[in-house]
């Protein structure tokens, strides 16, 4: 147990020590939210008739994007946290870890928990944008966000560890992750409402774990149950699977199952890849 704690602690210490990474992590969400979000906002609302009276007048693209940005941040941080595993191999520290009497399973779990914790902290840091974009978030929502973020981060960190255990260089890892990030992000509903998609795309959306993650953040932050049905539909908030509108608790279960699958695979792969 203490081994898990030690591995976790190292990642957290290093996260807070690396100031450049801390501030750099604001750059991408900021650009998406302010440059992309604000730019798209006007165009989108005129397209869906938001300039006319009616329920759609309340459509605000930046507000729509905000839960997706939290999802993006958690996703990015969690998956890149596994980069440290590859770097530890490159810089030698992995040998110090691997020749210790700790079990491979504790090391893998410690790494996933470390990545998840850091991802939750980064996700929470995105809340500094709240006053500038006009979403209202109360304390209760934040309390609900934290465990959900953690669950999502845990699943994604496990995917990261699975990739990292299969690769030897950080360049290789970064390549693979870059290739994964964009389709997962664009087909998750984080950037635009998932309405009227071609059937094949819809399949990818539904198998993308990020879809359910982002939708959970939306359900917490945007409170779709208080919206007019037309607006809810325009924002793509009625996520259905096999014609069934999926509920928040069902989404939790989906992400939980994904977490268990990937943390198991990652642990097996990690234990096997090292001698």
């Amino acid at each position, binding site marked *: 147990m203490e081994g898990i704690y030690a591995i976790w602690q190292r990642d957290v210490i*290093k996260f807070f*020590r690396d100031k450049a990474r801390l501030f750099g992590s604001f750059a991408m969400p900021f650009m998406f939210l302010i440059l992309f979000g604000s730019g798209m906002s006007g165009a989108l609302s005129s397209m869906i008739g938001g300039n006319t009276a009616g329920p759609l007048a309340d459509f605000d693209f930046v507000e729509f994007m905000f839960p997706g940005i939290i999802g993006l941040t958690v996703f990015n941080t969690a998956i890149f946290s596994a980069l440290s595993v590859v770097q530890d191999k490159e*810089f030698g*520290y992995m040998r110090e870890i691997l*020749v210790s009497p700790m079990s491979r399973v504790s090391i893998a779990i410690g790494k996933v928990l470390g990545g998840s914790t850091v991802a939750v902290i980064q996700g929470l840091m995105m809340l500094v944008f709240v006053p500038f974009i006009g979403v209202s978030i109360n304390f209760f929502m934040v309390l609900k966000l934290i465990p959900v973020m953690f669950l999502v981060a845990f699943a994604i960190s496990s995917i990261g560890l699975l990739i990292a255990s299969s690769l030897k260089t950080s360049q290789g890892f970064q390549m693979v992750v870059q290739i994964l990030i964009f389709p997962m992000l664009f087909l998750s509903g984080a950037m635009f409402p998932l309405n009227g998609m071609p059937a094949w795309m819809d399949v990818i959306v539904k198998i993308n774990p990020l879809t359910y993650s982002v939708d959970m953040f939306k359900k917490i932050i945007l409170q779709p149950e208080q919206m007019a049905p037309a607006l809810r539909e325009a924002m793509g908030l009625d996520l259905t699977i096999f014609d069934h509108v999926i509920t928040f608790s069902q989404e939790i279960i989906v992400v939980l199952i994904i977490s268990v699958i990937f943390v198991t695979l990652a642990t097996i792969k990690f234990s096997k890849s090292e001698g």
Partner: protein
Amino acid sequence: MGKNIVEVTGLKKYYKDFQAVKGIDLTVEEGEIFGFLGPNGAGKSTTINMLSTITNPTGGTAKINGYDNVKEKNKVRESIGLIFQESTLDEKLTANENLMLHCKFYKVPKNKREERIREVLQIVDLEDKRSNIVETFSGGMKRRLEIARGLLHYPRVLFLDEPTVGLDPQTRNHIWEYILKLKEKAGITIFLTTHYMDEAEICDRVAVMDHGELIALDTPEKLKNDVGGDIIEISTTDNQDAKKKIEESYQVDVTETSEGKLTFQVSEGSSFIVDFVKESDIPIQTVNLRRPTLNDVFLHLTGREIREETVSQRDLMKRSMRGPH
């Protein structure tokens, strides 16, 4: 000395088309400084990797502190400390953080940690650097910190793989002082590899390895005696001529060193040298009589010198295969 702390029988490691270690037998007694000597690529690191549970052997067995290296990996890991050729410190963390993490990895009791960290830092003279980030350390300081870290869990055997490689001579000497201090203070068994001859002289016993096989195993003194007699080293104005004359009149093999000196072996060096200088008509400039070094031992056993600088193809291959990657 006491019981055997390391017992190796028929240990071998084969890679696809390369036999790194071809079945070696050796035992190390508790409290010994045991040197593993050989050129780069001889199979020293592969052997250490097998002894320290990083690599599984292709055949044979190894036991450390009574535990089997394959079946009781965790017990072996608790019994050993490892200092690798390459640094395995986390350079973004402080010395203290590196040591604290190690305590946690090895389950050092909580109430002992502070005391032990102080103790090991004192052995390597780094007490005042405790809260500094490792990145700011010099090469020698990093090495010392690694040695300190390797001692934290009170291992029975400390493995040092080329502990002084890449360090300047002065730092090398310091590291050796610390290692000897360790032996005296902690009574720990030290198993080290090196390709520096002078370092191997410090060991209680030396195993000479070449091409994956042990070709000799004894005390440095005995090994040197086996070379046979003393080494005469002369410099002359005409080496070619002198070489021929010495070989003819004394029936010895004369080799010319890279510094342009002639060396050969005789059984009774001190009496030989008197007659030699008196009688020979060779234009001698300097004469030097010395006891054989381990370098001469290696030369005697293999017909080659241990080269420190040349990196062979095989060596590169070995490096890329080494480690847990």
